[in-house]
């Protein structure tokens, strides 16, 4: 009698030379997941990522709550990037309910979403630094992140889980004098992240260690369905803010960063370059934003969708294209909410990249995929 076993439990006949390592879930270099790695000496023969340790059933929970009460818990998968996680859901509900959003609210949303992208990327960068044994690169981003968290706290009232975007606009208007404070802090933030080049990105040891490791070619990147920074590091110019502009992104002046190499170094550099673009977007949006006006359309209590209807919206989050598919059947609760997350798409590339690499490259290749374990599990 053969029984289907989980990947880690199955007894496999392997060569005597090969050692199986369970990297995670209790391992400083794994995150909330397990990577089953088979090594021959210092080389990785096979790799089997095993996510699912933090599955919380967000999608099922969404079917029991109405459109408004879904907001605080749908942002939980990535609390550092909570505005961007919520963005496609809010856009979808607005289309389902047929709501027109005020112009000022659109700008506030863009600013909040770009600030959040930077907050997420700084956290990601801190962990990337400590994965490579660079403790200063852990402390600096973790400290500089506070600048933007303070801004978001002024804006939304919460430090990480903002629940700021609602169907019909944003929850609150900006506090008085926010524009000046925001401009000052964002300028200082941009100055700080440019200093990271000297200590981290131009470091010869870092370049020697991560360049030409875990190379993902342009064709493979497209074939495996990767998104976001991983795709752009492989030479594909694909950014939803340019390709499918939502809210006011088409009126703002910015560019997408594309690198050709497709190795760990390029993958780690793209989010850092994106942060500078985010600073540009924030400055431009602060300039163009209407100085006064409504930020929220009043909704009826307990809004209902119009009949059997479905909508799919996607945005560019800190990790890549994040989609949300909402089906409504005319009740106050959605019939189905499906999150299509970039982390899981990027994780698919991991076994292909790690095969034949050295064990020492595992942390850098793994974390350069811009992967967030909690988001992949939802």
């Amino acid at each position, binding site marked *: 009698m053969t029984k289907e076993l989980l990947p880690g439990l199955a007894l496999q006949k392997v060569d005597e030379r090969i050692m199986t390592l369970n990297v995670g879930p209790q391992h400083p*270099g794994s995150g909330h997941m397990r990577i089953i790695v088979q090594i021959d000496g210092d080389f990785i023969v096979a790799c089997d990522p095993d996510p699912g340790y933090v599955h919380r059933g967000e999608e099922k929970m969404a079917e029991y709550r109405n459109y408004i009460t879904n907001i605080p818990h749908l942002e939980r998968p990535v609390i550092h990037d909570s505005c961007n996680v919520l963005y496609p859901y809010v856009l979808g509900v607005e289309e389902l309910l047929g709501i027109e959003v005020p112009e000022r609210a659109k700008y506030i949303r863009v600013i909040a979403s770009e600030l959040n992208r930077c907050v997420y990327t700084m956290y990601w960068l801190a962990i990337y*630094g*400590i994965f490579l*044994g*660079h403790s*200063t690169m852990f402390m600096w981003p973790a*400290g500089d992140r506070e600048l933007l968290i303070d801004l978001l706290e002024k804006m939304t009232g919460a430090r990480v889980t903002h629940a700021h975007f609602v169907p019909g606009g944003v929850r609150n208007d900006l506090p008085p004098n926010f524009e000046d404070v925001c401009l000052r802090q964002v300028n200082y933030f941009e100055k700080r992240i440019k200093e990271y080049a000297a200590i981290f990105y131009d470091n010869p040891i870092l370049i020697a260690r991560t360049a030409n490791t875990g190379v993902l070619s342009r064709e493979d990147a497209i074939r495996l369905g990767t998104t976001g920074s991983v795709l752009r590091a492989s030479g594909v110019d694909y950014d939803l803010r340019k390709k499918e502009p939502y809210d006011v992104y088409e009126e703002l002046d910015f560019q997408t960063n594309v690198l050709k190499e497709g190795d760990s170094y390029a993958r780690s550099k793209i989010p850092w370059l994106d942060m500078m673009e985010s600073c540009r977007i924030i400055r431009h949006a602060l300039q163009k934003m209407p100085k006064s006006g409504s930020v929220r359309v009043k909704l009826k209590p307990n809004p209902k969708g119009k009949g059997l209807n479905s909508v799919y919206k996607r945005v560019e989050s800190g990790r890549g294209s994040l989609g949300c598919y909402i089906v409504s059947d005319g009740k106050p609760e959605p019939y189905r909410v499906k999150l299509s997350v970039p982390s899981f798409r990027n994780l698919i590339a991991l076994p292909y990249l790690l095969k034949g690499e*050295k064990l*020492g490259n595992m942390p850098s290749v793994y974390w350069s995929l811009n992967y967030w374990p909690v988001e992949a599990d939802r």
Partner: protein
Amino acid sequence: MSVIAPNFKFSEFVKAILDNAFWILLIFVLIGLPAVFLILFYIEMPVINGELLTPFLALTWLADPSRTLPILKAFMTTDLFKIAAFPGFGFAALIAAGTIFIERKMLAKLQLRVGPFYCGKFEGILQLMGDGLKLISKEIIIPAKADKPIFWAAPILFVATAAAFVALIPVAPGWVVADVDVGLLAVFAVIGFFPIITILSAWSSNSKYPFIGGIRALHQMVSFEIPLILSLLGVVILTGTLNLSEIVASQSNFPWIIFLPIGAIIFFITILAELERIPFDLPEAESEIVAGWLTEFSGMIYGLVQLGTYLKLYAFAALFVVLFLGGWTGPMIWPPFPEDIITNGIVLGPITAKIPGLPIFSQEMLNGVLWFVIKTMGVIFFILLPRGVFPRIRVDMLLSLGWYKLIGLAFVNIFIALGLLYAGVLGPGGIL
């Protein structure tokens, strides 16, 4: 009845104090006095005023502080003092504790944080003591399938080997625990023990991550020992001796780093690798193999390994100072002891006390120790600094660095030394 201590009774408080005093006196009489006699028995007693000092006489002199100084001086020349306190273990442990404090605060300043702050009134200076107490109070967990005798022995051997290394370092003229003629060879022999202990501890824990870490440590130490030894040959060629004290004495005019900078750089890189410090901390690479060969250590076993690591760090930095920076040599900056006190004595209130035997240490010795500590701390600072600015490198990069680049450069260094020797510039019978 007070609110702060509701069960406080003055009579019990007095009784507790008297109890404690009784037990302290009893323990002092039963253990302390025999211990003092034992120590006095082993000290070579000085002859003072034409009279040989006996332990009994010495004990009666304890009442007069000025007359205990000869005993103190006699004790300081014993091997026990040298091994346990000054040039040996105690001094090295003190510098190691200072190193840990400096490392934490310096790294914190580099990374825009405060570091240890609350323990101890001044800048968290007692944090290390707190950590030590915590480690002592922790349970020692040994893996079920570990080879227990070796697993227990490895940390102790590690500290013992590091202490043996420390014993070979001359700190001031005449102040060295083991002044052997083949000092440098003894250093190489001691360094050769570390990979064996590391692989023993890693293998005996019977766990995957320590095993990988141990293999990495073995690769790293073995491949960096060769450039380490080769880089020091230049100094040996120019001085013509292996005795570390004589190597220091040969640098009274100029340190060897001026003529052998390549050797100094190679030696510095290899000690970074031997000490498993960033960028060469592969055996303890956290994100790859948890804590490497230290993964299964817990409690004071881990504390012992850490103590050994920092003793080793001090010993390597001191070796760098001894071989390339001129050891204790340096301009005289220590103020002389006031002649006034030696001839006329100190006036303490109504009494004038003449104390024979002052000063305890000579001016040359104190000055030498001062220069030695300054230079050693400077080298330790540069050993600690890469931790803040470099990421970790990979095994293949490490091995190619050790086998291709450093060994080749070490030979260049040896040729430079030989050229200087045959040109008659330096070395035995040289111009300089």
